[in-house]
């Protein structure tokens, strides 16, 4: 029976990690499904509409209806598309989006029936690098998918995605540098522990937090930075030629990227799962919900930027601010 208790990270048996992974993936997928509903509802209320309210009470079955519709749709295929890449790209995008969530801690860890259960799926020493690496890998899904479908709109959309994501990734990575310097670790579990010991990093790293949120909005290509899929100009951007569940996978990866990004912001700046009275996962979900609401709120409020404004904002505002923040933090960390 030694294989049952054979321990991986922090004395957690490997099969518990597996169960945790399945649960977390399903929770994230569930969260994605209902995030679409909540987004449509909240946007509706902000625009004096009701949002979906027909499928089930208060429209609660709308995500399921959408899913059934997407799955039942014909998987059409542009005649000139590059088959393998066209089919493979949505999977790549969805896979990387789902994987990223595994390193985000959501609880303190418990001992249940003598077994150690960690509050995260994986504690990688370079978790933050892993997140950015997987995010960059996921961009290939968008770029290759848009190119492989052989449509001008798709190609333009994927080129915009490419340019925008590459530009803003620099600012995004630099904005978290301050947190890494203060915590002295790239592991997200350590970052959360360090915040519990000192103070939530949103206070000393407020500039970093703001830059992270803005660059993150651009990274997930949401309004006001939704140029890669600007409907008025590009039909739908890189997924113009996708339909059915393949489109569903792209949509899923975008929303899950948003959830992951919010989770990352919670972990890095808002103290992770720490909070008084309530158990860890509840606090994590609460903070996550607040951030997701902020993103939806931003989407309803702000109009889309022009492309040159986007580039200027990324390179001339966010990047210098993030760099300055990192440099000043480095000096202060060394001095104090």
């Amino acid at each position, binding site marked *: 029976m030694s294989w049952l208790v054979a321990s991986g990270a922090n004395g957690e048996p490997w099969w518990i990690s597996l169960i945790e992974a399945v649960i977390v993936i399903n929770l994230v997928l569930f969260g994605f499904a209902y995030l679409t509903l909540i987004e449509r509802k*909240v946007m*509706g*209320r*902000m*625009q*004096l*509409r*009701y949002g979906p*309210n*027909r499928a089930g009470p208060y429209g609660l079955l709308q995500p399921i209806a959408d899913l059934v519709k997407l799955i039942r749709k014909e998987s059409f295929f542009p005649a000139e598309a590059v088959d393998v890449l066209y089919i493979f790209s949505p999977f790549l995008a969805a896979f990387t989006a789902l994987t990223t969530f595994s390193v985000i801690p959501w609880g303190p860890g418990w001992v249940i029936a003598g077994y150690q259960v960690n509050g995260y799926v994986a504690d990688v020493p370079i978790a933050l690098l892993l997140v950015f690496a997987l995010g960059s890998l996921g961009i290939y899904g968008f770029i290759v998918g848009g190119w492989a479908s052989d449509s001008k709109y798709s190609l333009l959309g994927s080129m915009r995605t490419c340019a925008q994501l590459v530009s803003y990734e620099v600012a995004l990575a630099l904005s978290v540098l301050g947190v890494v310097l203060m915590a002295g670790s790239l592991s997200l579990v350590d970052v959360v522990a360090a915040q519990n010991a000192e103070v939530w990093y949103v206070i000393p790293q407020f500039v970093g937090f703001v830059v992270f949120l803005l660059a993150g909005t651009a990274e997930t290509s949401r309004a006001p930075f939704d140029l890669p899929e600007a409907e008025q100009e590009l039909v739908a951007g890189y997924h113009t030629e996708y339909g059915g569940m393949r489109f569903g996978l792209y949509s899923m990866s975008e929303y899950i990227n948003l959830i992951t990004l919010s989770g990352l912001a919670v972990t890095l700046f808002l103290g992770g799962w720490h909070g008084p009275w309530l158990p860890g996962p509840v606090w994590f979900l609460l903070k996550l919900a607040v951030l997701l609401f902020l993103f939806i*709120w*931003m989407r*309803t*409020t*702000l109009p889309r930027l022009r492309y040159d404004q986007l580039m200027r904002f990324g390179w001339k505002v966010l990047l210098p601010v993030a760099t300055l923040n990192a440099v000043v933090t480095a000096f202060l960390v060394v001095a104090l």
Partner: protein
Amino acid sequence: MQPFGTLKGFGVTFKHIFKQPITQQYPEFKRPVYPRFRGRHRLHRHANGLEKCVGCSLCAAACPADCIRVVADENTAEHRVSAGERYARIYEINLSRCIFCGYCELACPFDAITLGNEFELSEYSRDDLIYTKDMLLAEPIKRVPVQDPDLYDTPIPAYKSSS
């Protein structure tokens, strides 16, 4: 100041969450149509029960979409349908072609055909959209909402009551 203007926008959108939506929830709440609204056609009768239509086909001639088909026949003493010499033995309107322009109404010398108020004309088959004389003469079918009207009704839009 530009950044403060942006923040003000956030305030506006947040405030609107708590307002009553102005959506009129259609199948339950049907907005009354205007008096001159041009909906589905109706054929009319005289007070004594005879049809007003005399089968002159002027409506079919006026129709730009060519969706009206009239086949006239002679009235006889034992089979009198309309007030005139002839009557429409067949009167069909293909509503999948009709553009609701109302020219048939204008062309009719006896006011036998008018455009009514019915606009809920969906059918599962195109054949069902060819309205025959009996259907055009009959009272229109009342369409009822499929769900509880109390759940979805919005009689007075909030924008009219608040500002």
